[in-house]
């Protein structure tokens, strides 16, 4: 069953300054994509290809200039009050910049409990129990709960954000480069955690990244974007299936797992 679907969505940004309106920049140009219940889709592309814009449109943070985003078959713009409530509960997003995604004056407990207050009917004791459960799920000690975001490390805060996204038991989590600025062992641990949660609860994931190393182990399906358009879609996460030049360029940039015995000095054109 299709959870969320974009049909030919476009988005143009226009910068405005004191001296007038700048040139329009098309971030998305007629992009279509869908995510079904329980699947993990990797959305790949270089910086500036429009993948984050697409993620923001899919979770309703922004509206497309053209095309439609639908949730469980109904266009977002036409959802009624209860439909919108359900959409907000079932589609959650985790951002790359964890410190920027939390209120610095909220303690960890309130940060994770906030979606529970707004999106569920749990009472205060039930919310507190759920927060403890979520902290355990993301492998953080309960002693973190009364701390402020500035008192925990970047990796811990990113896991707090993941716990917050999982709090209202969503059907889809959109991870926008959500692990790329963590230390490597934390990236691996976070991905393993998400995979376990997925097997246990069957949530769907849209995994936005430029790091192809993470894709093969984590995704069911791969979508590659370039300059605001989808240029390739494969039915598997096997990187060997990729054919488009933009995909091959990303693939060629994967760092080696092990040092090469004989170094080859490549000469690459400037860009």
């Amino acid at each position: 069953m299709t959870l969320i679907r974009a049909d030919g969505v476009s988005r143009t940004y226009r910068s405005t300054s004191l001296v007038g309106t700048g040139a329009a920049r098309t971030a998305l140009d007629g992009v279509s994509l869908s995510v079904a219940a329980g699947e993990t889709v990797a959305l790949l592309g270089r910086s500036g290809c429009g993948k984050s814009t697409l993620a923001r449109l899919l979770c309703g943070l922004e509206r497309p200039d053209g095309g439609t985003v639908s949730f469980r078959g109904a266009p977002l713009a036409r959802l009624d009050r209860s439909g919108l409530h359900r959409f907000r509960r079932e589609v959650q997003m985790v951002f790359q910049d964890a410190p920027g995604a939390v209120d610095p004056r909220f303690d960890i407990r309130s940060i994770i409990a906030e979606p529970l207050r707004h999106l569920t009917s749990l009472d205060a004791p039930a919310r507190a129990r759920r927060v403890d459960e979520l902290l355990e799920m993301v492998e953080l000690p309960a002693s973190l709960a009364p701390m402020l975001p500035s008192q925990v490390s970047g990796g811990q805060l990113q896991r707090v954000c993941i716990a917050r996204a999982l709090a209202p038991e969503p059907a889809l989590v959109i991870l926008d480069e959500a692990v790329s600025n963590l230390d490597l062992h934390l990236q691996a641990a976070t991905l393993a955690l998400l995979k376990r949660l997925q097997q246990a609860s069957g949530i769907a994931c849209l995994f936005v990244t430029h790091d192809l190393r993470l894709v093969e182990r984590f995704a069911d399906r791969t979508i590659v974007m370039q300059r605001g358009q989808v240029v390739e879609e494969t039915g598997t996460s096997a990187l060997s299936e990729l054919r488009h030049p933009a995909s091959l360029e990303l693939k060629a940039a994967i760092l080696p797992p092990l040092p090469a015995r004989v170094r080859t000095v490549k000469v690459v054109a400037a860009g």
Partner: protein
Amino acid sequence: MSLNLAPKPASASGTLSIEGLTVAAGRDGAGPVLVRDLTLEVRRGRVLALVGASGSGKSMTCMAALGTLPPGTRALSGRVRLDGAECPPASLRGRQVATILQNPRSAFNPVRTMRDHALETLAALGLAGPDADARIEAAMAEAGLDEPARILPLHAFEMSGGMLQRMMIALALLAEAPFLFADEPTTDLDLVVQARILDLLERLVAARGLGVLLVTHDMGVVARLADDVAVLDHGRLVECAPVEEVFHAPRHPLTRMLVSAHLALYGLELAP
């Protein structure tokens, strides 16, 4: 006529060694120890990677060696030797050791053009002369910036992250310093740009015999570029070995953890 008083960068030096470096927090150095009795050797034509978790003292080591520790930290002991001869850290800066940093955008003055930065670098080294433009263009070409005339009038905000990092490398090359400290040089760049910058560094090491101290948290970057690896844990050097040894037979538990987490990203496992 230029005042060319500065000595020409020595091209003979082959080894830069940091010996017995200890850095502590606090103005009087009474705070927590950030780097403890660290000894490292950077050799020309080789890349030494300095790895460890965030906060393990990687960047502090680079800064202490060049005498650029931030306020509130102090080097309690340690010397830097160039081919055995002790050098005051400030004398190395720019002349013997060029530096490139993570997030090149913040390393440029936002209201000055690239040309201003290049001329300032030359002037600081006493190399500003009639051949300045030719020097700048040659350094830019070597860093893979092919259109100097288009790029030199630009400000940092008009350039991409990859272009800025190339410009940083071009400025580093201007000094013709034999050593380069690269502190997380590709961390904020997208993967394709990262690969190109690493290719460029590899070529420069081969062509110029540059000795590189590469600070990184990404073992993929280490596998790609390093010849030797030094592992830091809470300011202490826990392992230093050739790169093959570190990946195939890491000794310290921290090194094993770093390597196995890295290999797990590729679905590989460390041999027990």
